[in-house]
Each structure stands twice: as structure tokens, then as C-alpha cells.
């Protein structure tokens, strides 16, 4: 089997491996990330977070996902007074 064909076969196998569970895996990953978002934004919502000093650094990185997150958590509007995204 040539290198190219083997790679192509490997790709097909990979698709066969992943296809059936892509959705379930993405959901699991998102659940983990949702928990992470809660940890990072905990202090801003008045929940004590002993790691707050460290998670503060991550805030700018997660701003973009904030809107999607609070909508997914069942809050139509941003829960933070000083932080509006919608």
C-alpha cells in the first residue's frame, strides 16, 4: 500500500471511528467547558472563588464565549450588571 493510499485509508478509519459519537463527545466537552466558564465568572457573580486571582487572567480570553454561555445556561440577558453583551 502506498503512503498516500494508506493515509487515505487511515482518514476513512478515523471518520468511521469518530462519526457516530461526534455529537455526544461535543456535548460532553461543552459541559466541561460550561463548568469552567462558571468557575471563571464566579467572582463577578458574587460566588466566592478561591482561585479567583488566577482565573481573572482568563477573562479576556473567554469574553467571546460569554454570550453563548449565559444563553445556554437559561439566562436570556447577561447576568452581570457592568458587563453587557446583549
Amino acid at each position, binding site marked *: 500500500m502506498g503512503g498516500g493510499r494508506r493515509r487515505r485509508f*487511515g482518514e476513512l478509519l478515523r471518520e468511521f471511528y469518530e462519526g457516530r459519537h461526534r455529537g455526544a463527545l461535543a456535548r460532553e466537552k461543552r459541559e466541561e467547558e460550561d463548568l469552567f466558564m462558571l468557575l471563571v465568572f464566579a467572582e463577578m457573580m458574587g460566588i466566592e472563588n478561591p482561585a479567583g486571582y488566577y482565573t481573572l487572567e482568563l477573562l479576556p480570553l473567554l469574553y467571546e464565549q460569554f454570550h453563548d454561555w449565559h444563553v445556554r445556561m437559561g439566562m436570556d440577558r447577561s447576568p452581570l450588571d457592568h458587563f453587557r453583551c446583549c
Partner: protein
Amino acid sequence: MSAILLAVLALGAFALGYIFYSRFLAERIFQLDPAFETPAHALEDGIDYVPTNRYVLWGHHFTSVAGAAPIVGPAIAVIWGWLPAFLWVVFGTVFFAGMHDAGALWASVRNRGQSIGALTESVVGRRARTLFMVVIFLLLLMVNAVFAIVIAQLFVGFPSSVIPSWFVIAVALGIGYLLYRRGVPLLWPSVIALLLLYGSMFVGDAVSLALPDVVLGMSPAVAWVVLLFAYAFIASLLPVWMLLQPRDYVNGLQLFIGLGIFFTAVLLANPSVVAPAYNQALPADVPPMLPLLFVTIACGAISGFHGLVSSGTTSKQLDRETDVRFVGYLGAVGEGALALAAILACTAGFATLAEWEGFYTSFAAGGINAFVQGGGTIISAGLGLPAHFGQTLLAVMAVLFAATTMDTGVRLQRYIIQEWGHIHDLAVLRNRYIATTLAVAACLVLAFGAGDGAGSGGLTIWPLFGTTNQLLAALTLVVLSVFLLKKGRPTVYTLVPFAFLITMTVMALLVQLRGFWDAGRYVLVLMDVVILAATIWVALEALGALRRTGRGGPGAPSESELVAHE
């Protein structure tokens, strides 16, 4: 009768069905359009909606729908003789299953990839949706209970399968770890996993692991059922990537290899069918063939479960609408081929009629051991393998199918219970551990409540599972018919199978009700009554929906509602 001749006849019929009937359906009934933008493209998100190569998609679809059911059903049903089972599998696959699977796929593709459950609500009504959920829950409950019994039966009958069957869990965990955590390319782990799997069968063949006669006061079969549910409890709580995904993958690979090995062996060994074409000397407990044949063989002839897969995941990955024919119809054909293999193994793998009759002493005996014994003999003879190795191979194959389905089944039940927790705002049910405990407990009640069920390894409950599966198929055909009617297309190709299925389902339920009542199995009586009520309900909803649609009156869902995406 030569087994090769039977195989050629059936596979030839499948080929003709694909070439002619599926083309007719594709061109005239579904009117598949290569230019139609499928949900995989329209809603592409890289997760659920992903355009997929049709061969890969067929592989997914087939391995998702194929399992232990198309083996167990025919294995039981050949007790009436090989001819009825053979004819039902051939005609069922060509005219019922192929149309049903492709139809469900098409209807879903035309409705933004919605599942049959969601389509039921928009096409038939909200009540029917509730009904649909109830039927699915019952189906999962029965599939888990019945497969645990099947696996226990195999472990007791073929102790050589115990080591490889559990060893594969370790192999799957290894693959999951290598792929997900280490990012290793898939090819070599796959090859090594298969070598390990088949190597472990040689080990199992040498070292049989049978439980002692009494385990903590339980018989071996009961102990295995309890152990299996303990396993399913843990497995369904683990992350998908860790166990379920690699397990499904290994299972898919060994399905193709197993089918290849079996049909090659049939070709090389050319065994003769020793079982009677029509069994005149039926054991006393065998129920009448009409209607029971048509619910005993569900998967392999037509199965509602396929509609769930078609519309649940496959429809969201279809690259072009014309692939409906290839993926949907040939998915059913693959399942038919598996059922055919089961029929051949259970009827041609024996030296004499007396030996065959030794396996079919009662209906509840279940025939799965006949499948392993007979099929194993064919494989060993055809490929020149050690006498027992063929049996170990098939026993492990059947166990892996059933066990993978149990893993998924318990997980799905947990999701449904958690969803009820959300709908009714019950925090207790939302807890994954409590939901899983409830799911497993319900399955155990059913597995042991079936009277002689787990204790003596009986499969009395099997036809009830098949009945529920057919009910689901009937419900899918209603949805499909209403959808076709709205589009002004002929509905006779869906309504005739629907009428047939509903008639057989009701008759089978009545026959079984009588049997369960006489045997004093009240758990099953209750289940039977619930399913009977659901069946009548389905029939009434169907008539209502068809009449509403026919009149085009109020209550009929509007065309735009149904085909919002066209």
C-alpha cells in the same frame, strides 16, 4: 437443500431489490433530487451536521443498526422450519425494511434532519409524540433485559467466550486512551486490537471460565445477568470517548470480519440444511407461527429501531439526497444478510436432524446456542480451524453485539429519565447516578420478572421485544405515509406494510397475552397490555392523521410546516 443455494437465492433477491425496487422508490416515490441541499450542508456545524462520504456513512449506519437482534430473532424463528424464516427475511428486507429505512432517512433529510420523534409531533400530533417516547422507553427496557439474558446464556453455554468478551473491554479502553489522550493515528492500534481480540479467542478456547454452580446463592445465569448490569451501570456513566466509542469501533470492525468469515466458510464447506423446511414436529410450548413469526424476526426483516438511527444521526450526515438509496436501502440489506447468516448457521450447521432437534426442544430455549454451535461447525469445517474455535468466535461476536447495545441502551435510558427530570422539574431524576440506577433497576425487574427468564436462560420475552420494535416501525410508516400524501405521492407502498405490521402486532400481542396470563407472568401481562394499548393508539392516530391530511382540513399540518426547508 444446499446452504450455498439458499445464500445465493437470498443475496440475489437483495441485489434485485436494490437494483429495481430501490430505484423505483428513489425515482418515483421519494423523487430524490441530487441538487437538493441536504441538512449536512445547509446546517453544517462540524458536530452533528457533517457531510460524509457515503461508504463511510453506510458503514456507520449499518454498524449502528446491526447487533444481536438480527441473530437472536432468526435463531428462535427457525423452530417453525427454515422456509418461513427465510421467506420473511428475504421479502421483509426487500419490500419492508429497505423502504422503511430509506423512507425514514428521506423524510428526515427533507425536514432539516429532524428525528422521527420530532417528525411524529409535527406530522401526526403532540399526543403521538408522547406515545412515541413511551414506546422507545419500553423498547430500550426490553432490549437491555433480553440482551443480558442472551449474554448470560452464551457465557453459560460457551464458557470459552468469557475471557475474550471481557478482555475486549481492556482493548477498547486502550484504544480510547491512545487516540483521545495521546493522539496516536488509528491504523496500527486497530490492527493490534483485532490481533489481540482474535488472539484472546485462542486463549479463551484453551481456558474456559465457567462460574461455579452456585454464586452467592444464585445460579450462574442469574449471577451473569447481575454482573452484566453492574458492568452496564459503570460503563454508561463513563465518558463516551473512554469506552463506548472505541468499543463501538472494534465491534464494527469485527462485524465486517465476522460476516466475511462466515459467508466464506459457507462457500468452502457447502453444508446442507438439515432442519425441516416446515417443522411438523413442534415442541409443545411453541406459539402459532402466524402471527408470531413476524414479531420474532423483527431486525433482519423490518425494524423500527432503524428509523431511529436513520433519522437520528444518519440523516444529518448525508452528503447528497440521492445517497438515501445507497445508505438507507443497503443498510437494511446488510442487516438482512446478517439475519440470513443466522438462519444458515441455525439450520445447516448440524450433521443430522436429530442433532438439530436437540437444540430446539422448546421455544423459550431461544436458539442462540444453536447459532453458535451450528455456525461454529460451519466455520471450523470451511476454514479448517480447530473444532471449538469457530464456536468461540461466534459466541464472542454475539456477546459483543449484545453488550455494545446494552452499553448504549442503558445510557439512552438514563438520558430519557434525566429528560423527564427536566420536564417535570424533579431534581432527583436529573442526577445521573440516580437516573442510571433507576434504568438498571427497571431492566433487572424485567429480566427476572419474566418468570423463568434469567433463571433457566429462557427467552420468553423475546417476541414482546420484537412486537414493540414492529410497533415503532409502524409508527414510522404512518409518519412517512402522511408526508407522502401531503406531497401528492402514492402511499400504497408504505400503507400496505403498515397495515400488515399493525395486524400482526395486535394478533401477536393477544396470543402472547393469553400465554403470559396462563403462565402467571404478571409483569409481562402488564407490559403486554401497555403495548397493546399503545398499538391501538398508533392505529387510531394514523387513521386520524391520514383523514385530516386527505381532507386537507384544519388540524392538518401545513405544507410549509412540514417542508420548511424546501
